[in-house]
């Protein structure tokens, strides 16, 4: 009989530190499934961010580097340029990729680095206690927007994926979500495409993943998924952006 579901080889058999209902664990697992399916575990090098996913390398069983907050794409550039035969990806939160690391993000994309980027948009800073992220929605309450994000004072949710899509060096961008089984399947497909693009030398690929943070949204896990479906996707529409 064919085995259709098993523990991925690239995923260590340990429990994670993530809060109940958090999307990081799921996103980690999808990456390991894709790595296994593509048979690239022995070639892959992951770059973990500073953020809730800082210890992703304790869950992924392949070579990994940590990067300073926001610098994952600079670190990945260094690795990939030295070892073009390896498959290098970054895994970054919205604060990491679209606030402190915006410069690194835009310029790695603009150079058309042959890298794959998994971008977890949870609309808050998780690790530091639920502050406003560049992607926080208008009126969304966080610990640093106690009255809700106000456009006049804090600006608008940053659509970095749409911005990056303008760059000729960028080959593929898709926004996906973890809020339902159908969307999870699409997420996995997009991840696979981003890695295959790199394997085929096509170039810079980024998958933005809308991901629940029940703890800092003040919601329990199921309503957090509903919030993505009913509210977040209005600001961050799903689908292929480029």
């Amino acid at each position, binding site marked *: 009989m064919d085995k259709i579901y098993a523990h991925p080889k690239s995923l260590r058999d340990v429990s994670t530190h993530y809060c109940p209902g958090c999307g990081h664990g799921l996103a980690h697992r999808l990456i390991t499934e894709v790595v296994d399916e593509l048979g690239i575990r022995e070639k892959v090098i992951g770059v973990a961010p500073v953020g809730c996913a800082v210890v992703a*390398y304790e869950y992924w069983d392949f070579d*990994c580097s940590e990067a300073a907050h926001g610098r994952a794409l*600079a670190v990945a550039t*260094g*690795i990939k340029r030295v070892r073009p035969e390896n498959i290098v990806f970054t895994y970054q939160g919205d604060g990491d990729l679209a606030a402190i690391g915006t410069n690194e993000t835009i*310029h790695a994309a603009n150079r058309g680095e042959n890298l794959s980027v998994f971008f977890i948009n949870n609309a808050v800073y998780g690790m530091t206690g639920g502050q406003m992220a560049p992607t926080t929605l208008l009126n969304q309450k966080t610990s640093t927007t106690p009255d809700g994000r106000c456009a006049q004072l804090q600006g608008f949710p940053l659509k970095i994926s749409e911005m990056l899509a303008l760059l000729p060096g960028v080959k593929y961008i898709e926004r996906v979500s973890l809020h339902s089984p159908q969307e999870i399947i699409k997420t996995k497909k997009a991840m696979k495409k981003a890695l295959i693009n790199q394997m085929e030398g096509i170039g810079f690929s980024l998958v933005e993943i809308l991901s629940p943070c029940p703890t800092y949204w003040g919601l329990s896990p199921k309503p957090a998924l509903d919030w993505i479906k009913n509210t977040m996707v209005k600001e961050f529409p799903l689908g292929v952006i480029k």
Partner: protein
Amino acid sequence: MDSEKRQKESRVKLLITGNEAIAESAIQAGCRFYAGYPITPQNELTAYMAHHMQDRGGVFIQAEAETAAINMVYGASAAGARAMTSSSSPGISLKQEGISYLAGAELPSVIVNIMRGGPGLGNIAPAQSDYFQATRSGGHGDYHCLVLAPSTVQECYDLTALAFELSDKYRVPAIILGDGMLGQMMEPIVVTKFRAPSLKQSNKPWALTGCKDRKANVVKSFYLKEGDLEKFNLKLQSKYQKIQREEERWEELFLNDVKIVLVAYGSMARIAKGAVKALREKGKKVGLIRPISLWPFPKKAFAKIRKQYLVIEMSYGQMLEDVQLAVNGQAGIEFLGRSGGGVPSEAEIIAKVNKIYHG
């Protein structure tokens, strides 16, 4: 490298600037990755890398900022390559977070600082006012970089290759600390053929290469479990103690029969040497200690001589503190320093020595 050995190797003479000598040495030492961002007075170094790295099997990237450059070096080094970045004072300030991470992840790397006047944007005149930043963990945390200070273009060439070697050996970042005068100065140098390890042969079992036939490698500096970070720090400290014991380097001049010992490094030491020679001709018993390694500071050089010291710097007294620590109250120390574009001249040094001599 000593001159005898240099003669045995193939001798090629080049007339180049200090900046270019550092770049050429790096390439010959097997540097396979360079990232930089333009800043005067080190632009010739970046330009040299742009011209030569690609053709000689390396990677050159003009980064979007110094922060990116140092983190690219982090990635390249994590992947096992010899890697370098260069900048001048304001840019080196921006790199400090990255240097702390390099130290924390024990990644070999060479960082060149061709110092200019500060603070702030300062100016582009030569200075030595980043000594504290280089020798006292300029970023956060208890760490050290190995710091080497060339004083001639030949030494720019020799010490850069040495920096790569020591950085690999101890897995610490190494800094080449020069100044605008040295970076821009042209001198003839003898070029040696270094035999650099290739990326494939390099003995770095910790490097990220893909986990084929081995357990997964992780490059990191994060230790969350109670006690782990302290343990790691103690490991770093014992490494630093070993470096302190084994890697002190300095040059000395006329210390056998001496009344006043000048202490200067880098470009400043060249001017001090001129003053020493002129004073000796006048029968004055003056000598020189020129620290070559600034960290570890060559304390041993000072243990032998309990005489009057005169520390001379293109700063308002930074290396002075290391001399005070080395001398530990056992001898008198005078200071002569200028910065912000001012350079103590040979005449100023001679006047100061005469004053101490007769005072």
